[in-house]
């Protein structure tokens, strides 16, 4: 089993049958539609973000999200699970990152934000991200607007605006 897992190049913990493992599975986040569950799992020997499809009962691949050199934590999901925000520790500094499952790309949203950040959560439509900031020397709430030109995460089959 260990040897098999070693051959698996996928960084997502898909080599497990059930949702939970005998390692820590924590920080659950649900997509707005209730179908997808994102969480942090230690089952592959490092802290990684996993996304589980509660309808089809299987893990999904997240190519490019988990990197062996960084710790990702505090995932949150938009309405259909298209956008995932999370904290990535980038050379000792936590940054808010956004992964788009459509493009399989991630981008840092907090690059130009100089204060310490924690616990980001994305709105169901994917436009806003709330997070904790240490800007005034204590934890406060800040709201980031990704702007009117992003592709909103809307339900399947809804008309294109």
């Amino acid at each position: 089993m260990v040897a098999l897992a070693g051959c698996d190049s996928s960084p997502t913990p898909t080599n497990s049958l059930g949702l939970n493992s005998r390692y820590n599975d924590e920080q659950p986040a649900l997509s707005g539609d209730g179908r997808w569950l994102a969480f942090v799992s230690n089952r592959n020997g490092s802290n990684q973000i996993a996304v589980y499809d509660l309808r089809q009962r299987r893990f999904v691949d997240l190519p490019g999200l988990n990197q062996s050199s960084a710790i990702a934590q505090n995932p949150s999901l938009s309405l259909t699970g298209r956008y995932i925000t999370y904290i990535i520790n980038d050379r000792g500094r936590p940054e808010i990152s956004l992964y788009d499952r459509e493009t399989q790309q991630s981008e840092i949203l907090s690059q130009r934000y100089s204060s310490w950040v924690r616990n980001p959560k994305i709105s169901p439509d994917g436009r806003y991200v709330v997070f904790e900031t240490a800007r005034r020397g204590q934890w406060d709430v800040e709201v980031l607007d990704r702007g009117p030109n992003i592709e909103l995460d809307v339900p399947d089959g809804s008309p294109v605006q």
Partner: protein
Amino acid sequence: MIGSKHWVLLLLTAVLSGCGGYPRLLNFSFDAGGRGLNSPASELSPQIASRYIAFVSDRNGSQDVYLFDAENRKLIDVPGLNSLDAIASNPAISQDGRYIVYSNSRQGNSEIELYDRETQIARTLTGRIQAEVRHPTISAEGSAIAFEVATDGQWDIMVVDRSGNALDIPGMPKE
């Protein structure tokens, strides 16, 4: 020509970007009297769904759940949610603004509770679970609730419906 939408955006624009691009921060005014999103006390674990931002704050001397209406820029009352003898943590609200889940710690015992803004009643979802529970969240459409359970010496994740019944998913912890 400046339309009303542009005017609103101008008001909201803040310090994140000097060059007028996105992403940018929304500017919710700070209120020393504790009636705004931020206060002189600490604000923790914010979550956003449509116009609602749920978070906890100790601005009134105990750690309670607060609900902020980002559209009307004011707090919304949640009567019957907070109690004097409990520490509330990690709130999350459904996008229709009706259901708020959070964890409540009372006399060393933590439970996941579901508050219904329509009935103004909070119910415990985890009364049958002996293990420690924490970090709840609710899906935006309000049907699924997930949280952590301390089972067999590590944290596992449990997903339940609004009545607290576990979804039929392989690997779910037993109650």
